[in-house]
Each structure stands twice: as structure tokens, then as C-alpha cells.
């Protein structure tokens, strides 16, 4: 019986490989669907559209952007996980859907192992902002104030389990301070809360545009300095070893033929290297990620998976 099963497996493997070899030369022969598990208009969507359009120009096949929002991005990512692994369905992922979601969602329709990472194309440090006239000018001021009056400072975020929230948790544990987290429904509302003086700080990517206009004050970013805000230091420059970045990258369902992954990786890297693409990403407040083989991206994903699990464990966070 076991032999019989092994035989079937062998036949299946061979039959999978035969088209795979064929695929490498002819791929792509038809339109590629790029699933965006967020509603249109956000950063994930703009990155996906920017790269999708350039990809289409370069490979001579249309790239169809398919927005499948819902359940914090897990609905659309789940659809991608269940799609055929032939390279004609790929999905844009970030730390939220690929790393954090499994802690916040009670029923995950996929795991990160259901995907083959293709390439990370952009990284972003999250902005820590305060009111323009606030007494805090840098992260050290915040830490000093928080230590003087534990639990008095408040910090808004775009929601529970958002990257901004987890960055705050990392600050709390690494600096040993107590700052109250105030979740809002989306970054725009967190800005309203900050300007309305309901919260003292906010940590969310949405703060970037207003920080540039001077209406609110960016005091730090959670990772490397951003190209658009070169004067705003990273928290790591004050708290040694602090680093928290979000990334955007493309994923294919696990088992997609290696040559297809390689080809897409090279295309995406080439696109990320184009000056006009880099400018557009900079405008969005993102840093273009130009290096990165698929293997390196796998590495990044697994490191972040460990890191986020540690933050959540250290802070004793419970989501449901």
C-alpha cells in the first residue's frame, strides 16, 4: 500500500515538474492576477499598482489588480494561498498580513508557509509624532517624561495589532516605560485624536504627510531614517538595538516553480531600481528595497515572525 502511495506521489511530482520546466521558458503566457487584500487607495494598493503596471510593460502581459479587502487583509491573502501555484496569481503582503495576523485573527485561513516569498520591494519606518507645540522634541524627552509619570502619557495608533501598536509595545519593553495605548479606527482618526490633544503621541504611518507639512511634529521613526524625513532620527539612535520596520513584498502560493519565482524576483528588483519608481515610493514615505533574492526575503520574513512573537509575548498581549 505504501509503495502504491509512493508511486502515486512520484507520478504527481513528475507531472508537476514537467510543466514547470516548460513554464520557465514560456512564462508568462497569459495575464497575471495580483491580489491586493486591502481596499484600493492605501499604501499596499498603490505599491501593488505601481509595480503591477511596470511589470505588465516589461513582460508583455496584463497584470490585473484584484482588490479583495476584509478581515484585516486575511481574506484576500487566504484567497491567494488557495490559488493555483502556477505563477499566474501573486499577492502583495506586509508585516501585518504575513506576520502579525496569525496572532490577532482567531481563525487564520492560511499560514506564512503557504507562500513562496518572491521579493521585498519597499520598507518603511513608522513615524512617531506629537503636536507641533508639544514639549517633546525627541524620543529621549518622551522616555524621560514617561519615566517621571508612569502611565500618564498616551499614544494613538491606527488600531489594535497594527504595526504602530506593536512598535509602541517594543518601545515600552525596551525603554521600560509605561505609555497608554489608545487604539483608533485607522490612522486618519489617530491624527484627529492627536491634533485634538486627546493623545500625546501617535505612532502610525498616516502621520507622515502632516508631519511634512508641519501641522504635527515627527520626533522619531521606528527604523532607519526615511528619505522624505532625513532630519528625523531613528529610535535605534537613542535606544540601542531598537529596529521596527514594515515591508511590502510580493508572494506566490507555495510550490510555484522556482524559475518563475526567480524571473519575477528579477523583474521586481529591476523595477524597484527605476528612478521614477524610487521617487514615487519616496513620495509615499517608503524606502525602495533594491537588494534581496527570494532567499533573503524568506530570511527577513522568518526573523520578523520571531520578533513579533517575542514582542507579543513580552507585552503579554491578548487579542481575542
Amino acid at each position, binding site marked *: 500500500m505504501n509503495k502504491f502511495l509512493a508511486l502515486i506521489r512520484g507520478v504527481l511530482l513528475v507531472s508537476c515538474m514537467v510543466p514547470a520546466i516548460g513554464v520557465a521558458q514560456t512564462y508568462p503566457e497569459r495575464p497575471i492576477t495580483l491580489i491586493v487584500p486591502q*481596499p*484600493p*487607495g*492605501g499604501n499596499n*494598493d*498603490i505599491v501593488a*499598482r505601481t509595480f503591477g*503596471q511596470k511589470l505588465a510593460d516589461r513582460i508583455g502581459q496584463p497584470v490585473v*489588480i*484584484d*482588490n*479583495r*479587502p*476584509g*478581515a*484585516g487583509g*486575511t*481574506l484576500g491573502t*487566504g484567497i491567494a494561498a488557495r490559488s493555483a501555484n502556477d505563477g499566474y496569481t501573486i499577492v502583495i503582503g506586509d508585516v501585518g498580513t504575513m506576520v502579525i495576523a496569525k496572532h*490577532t*485573527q*482567531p*481563525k487564520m*485561513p492560511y499560514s506564512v508557509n503557504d507562500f513562496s516569498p518572491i521579493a521585498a520591494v519597499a520598507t518603511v519606518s513608522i513615524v512617531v509624532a506629537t503636536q507641533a507645540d508639544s514639549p517633546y522634541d525627541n524620543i529621549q524627552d518622551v522616555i524621560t517624561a514617561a519615566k517621571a509619570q508612569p502611565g500618564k502619557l*498616551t499614544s494613538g495608533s491606527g*488600531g*489594535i*495589532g497594527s504595526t504602530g501598536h506593536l512598535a509602541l509595545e517594543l518601545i515600552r519593553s525596551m525603554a521600560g516605560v509605561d505609555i*497608554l495605548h*489608545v*487604539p*483608533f*479606527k485607522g490612522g*486618519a*482618526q489617530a*491624527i*484627529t485624536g492627536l*491634533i*485634538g*490633544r*486627546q*493623545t500625546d503621541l501617535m505612532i502610525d504611518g498616516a502621520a507622515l*504627510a*502632516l508631519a*511634512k*507639512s*508641519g*501641522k504635527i511634529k515627527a520626533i522619531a521613526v521606528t527604523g532607519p531614517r526615511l528619505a522624505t524625513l532625513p532630519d528625523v532620527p531613528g529610535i535605534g539612535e537613542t535606544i540601542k538595538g531598537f529596529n521596527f520596520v514594515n515591508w511590502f513584498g510580493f508572494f506566490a502560493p507555495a510550490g510555484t516553480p522556482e524559475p518563475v519565482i526567480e524571473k519575477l524576483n528579477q523583474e521586481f528588483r529591476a523595477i524597484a531600481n527605476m528612478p521614477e519608481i524610487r521617487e*514615487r515610493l519616496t*513620495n*509615499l514615505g517608503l524606502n525602495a528595497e533594491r537588494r534581496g533574492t527570494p532567499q533573503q526575503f524568506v530570511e527577513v520574513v522568518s526573523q520578523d515572525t520571531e520578533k513579533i512573537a517575542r514582542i507579543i509575548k513580552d507585552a503579554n498581549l491578548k*487579542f*481575542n
Partner: protein
Amino acid sequence: MDLLANLGLGFGVAFSAQNLLYAFLGVVLGTLIGVLPGLGPVATVAMLLPSVYVLDATPALILLAGIYYGAQYGGSTTAILINVPGEASSVVTAMDGYQMARKGRAGVALATAALSSFFAGCVGTIVVAAFAPVLTELAFRFGPAEYFSLMVLGLIGAVVLASGSLLKAIAMVVLGLLLGQVTTDVITGVQRYSLGIAELYDGISFVAIAMGMFGFGEIIVNLGRTVEQREVFTRNVKGLWPSRRDFKDMIPAALRGTMLGSLLGILPGGGTLLSSFTAYSLEKKARSRQDEVPFGQGNIRGVAGPEAANNAAAQTSFIPMLTLGIPPNAVMALMVGAMIIMGIQPGPQVMTANPQLFWGLIASMWVGNLMLVILNLPLIGIWIKLLTVPYRFLFPAIVVFCSVGLYTLNYNTFDIFSGGIFTIAGYVFHKLSCEPAPLLLGFILGPMMEENLRRALLLSRGDWSVFITSPMSALLLVIAMSMILFVMIPSISRKRQEAFVDD
């Protein structure tokens, strides 16, 4: 005067051939999106993105703004004609507008909606131009405590909306609040009442409820009637234009609605909806002629007030976006995105750094409103013709368009199923004479109310007195309490009278 010079600059920009064209395209597309039931912001925005990113900032924003208020406008057309409120704020319009249509006054209702909206749009535009910075500051005075109290006031207003039993209306509001609890809790991230269905993590779709209870529900009720009963209202279409008397009723209502809408519109989130509900409650309480048609049966003020309010609010809801770059909804988020992509920093400095864009957009709002009224008044004749199509052809068409609309909400068939479930619920409520409008308001305000209540307590470290120590919150609660008294006193006195009669 500065304002005049600025507006002059704006009109110069708005009246360029290219920008006129984009404003026109925007309002046409917006009207179409509004008229197609259920076609929501997700589909619209996805559809427009590619074209928006290749345009310059000014025409792109003019196009998007046109779509936004065009859709608000188109939404009331379906509400009046087929009882399908395309947008949350059209629920109120459906209540009396559809009843007017059933009495052969669809043309008058549509014209009333068009004219009130136009008037409110003009006033709203002036408010935006003259008071944008001042109103922005006002909006920031609204913290969670103030929001919560405003929601309480809005819900009490919803009870006043009911034309039937007060007790049942309160129960429907509470049921709406409970349905709103089916979502991910903002404060703790717990998915409540999801039954393990991932689609319910983000809550039940408003459009699915509105379409099931109003649109599909109405079809079933209509088909349950005999053919003769049904044909009465389609065959007997009276005049298209409001009479002198209609104008007399509608002008004060539109004025009141415009004032309310202009104020409430600046509140990010829910301002547009609250304004139309509040305007309706206000009209119901305002005195008018003795021989007026009762509310809920086709009162023209029930169309003029809320329509003016939601259109004025639609204009003033641009304020937070224009002055700070904070988008209150999906279409405006796209506008902010378009500005960022073009390298314009949204925020207070847009007014000084890009005056062409700022004032051009404001001027184009007025131009767009004018275009809408010019476009829509002649269309009324065509819409009315649509009602004369035999019902056996018309209703499958409504079902088809609504179903496709439901699918495109999130590109997910789940919303079609929830539409079906709420069709059954709507029919049950119809049979039990429970009105669905208070339920819908409760459904929308519920999550915001809870979120703000809990955030207020989080920020006050559990001190409930924040709701009365904030002057604005206290004022709103006092108004709410006096509204309860206002509603109760007549019923108390009526009970007394009845008691006397019984003796």
C-alpha cells in the same frame, strides 16, 4: 476683499475648458455610480485609480470631487424611485420620497431633491470658502466624550423619526445598535458575534441591510399585493414640477436642512448621515400647515430638509480634507493619495502653496452642483418613464442591478447572502409593523458610539464625569434630555385626554 479675489482665482481655474470637462465627467460618473444601487466606494475607487494617477493634481481632484457629490445626488434618485437607498444618507429620503412616488409624485420628489440639493450645495460651497479654517478648529474640539454625546442625541432623534409605535421604534434602534456590535472591537481587537465567519470581522455591510430591508423587501411587499393595487401608482403619474404650494413648503425646510448639514458635515465620520436624520426629525417637529400630508406618507418637507442637509454636509465634509489632509471617507482618501503622488503635501499650507488647486477645487464644487442640476432636471422625465415599465419587467431588473452591486461591495459573494437574509428580516419587520429606518441609524451610530464611549473612558482613566465636565458634551446631553421630554409630554397629555374620554 481677499475671499472675492480668491474665488475669482478659483473660478478662473474651474472655468478652463479642461477642468470644466473633468468636472462634467465627474458628475456624470458620480450620478451613474449613485444611481446603480450598491456600487460602493471600493469598486469606484479601484476603477478610477489608474486614470487619476496620470492626471495633474487639479483636474484629478476636480474629477474625484465631482464623483463624490454626484454619487450623493444619484443615491437619492433610486431611493425615491425604487426605495433603494444607495447611500446611508439616502435612507431618510426614501421614507417620504418613495411614498411621494407611490402617489404619482415621483417627478415632484425628484425635482425637490434636485433643487434643495443645489441650493444646499451652493451654500455649502460658500461656507467652505469662507469659514474652512475656523470650522476645522471647531471639529477638533470634538473629542470622544463630545462624540458620544452627539451620538446619543442622534439616536434620540431617530426615535422621533418613527411614525408608528414609540416603543417599537426604540426597540428597533436597540436592535440596530446590537447588529452594529457584530464587528471587531476597536479597543481590544476581539471579533464579536462573528460566528467564525471572517467576512463578519469587519461587520455586516450597511448596503446589504439597506438593500434587503428596503429594496428587496419592498419588491416582495409589492408582489404580495394584487396587480390592480400595484398598477395604481405606476400608471397615475402626475406633474413633474412642484407647484407653488410645494415650493412654499419646501423652501423653509431646505433652509433649515442646509444650516444643519453645513454644521454637522465638518465632523469626520457620520456627519453626513447624522445631518439628514437630524434634519428629518427637525422637520417633523417644525410647525406647518394643518392640512399637510403626514410624515412617512409622502410629505415634501421630508424630502427637501434631509436632501438639503446631506448635500450641504457633503460639501462641508471637504473641510478636514482640504485644510488638514485628513480624509473622512474612501473617495477623499483617494484625493489625498492623488495629491501625495503628485508631490503636493496635503495640509494647511495647500491654501497658500497651491492656491490654484485649493480655490479651483472649491469653485469647481459650485460649478459641479450647477451641472448636476442642469443634468438631472431633464433626466427626471426619463426616470418617470422608467416607472411606467410594467412591474414584471422592472422588478427583475432591480434585483439584478442590486445583486451585482452587492457583489462589487467587496468582490465577495458573502454580501449577496447577507442581502438575502436581511430581505427575510425586512419582510418579518414589515409584517410586524416595525420600521427599519431607526434600526439602520442605530446600526451605523452604534459602533461609533461604543468606540467613543470606551475611548473617552480609556483617556479619562475610567472617570465617567468627563461626559458632563466637557461643556459641549454636557450641552448635547441636555438637548438630548429635553428632546425626550419633548416627545413624552404630548403622549402624557394624550393619555390624560384618553382617560377623560373613557370616563
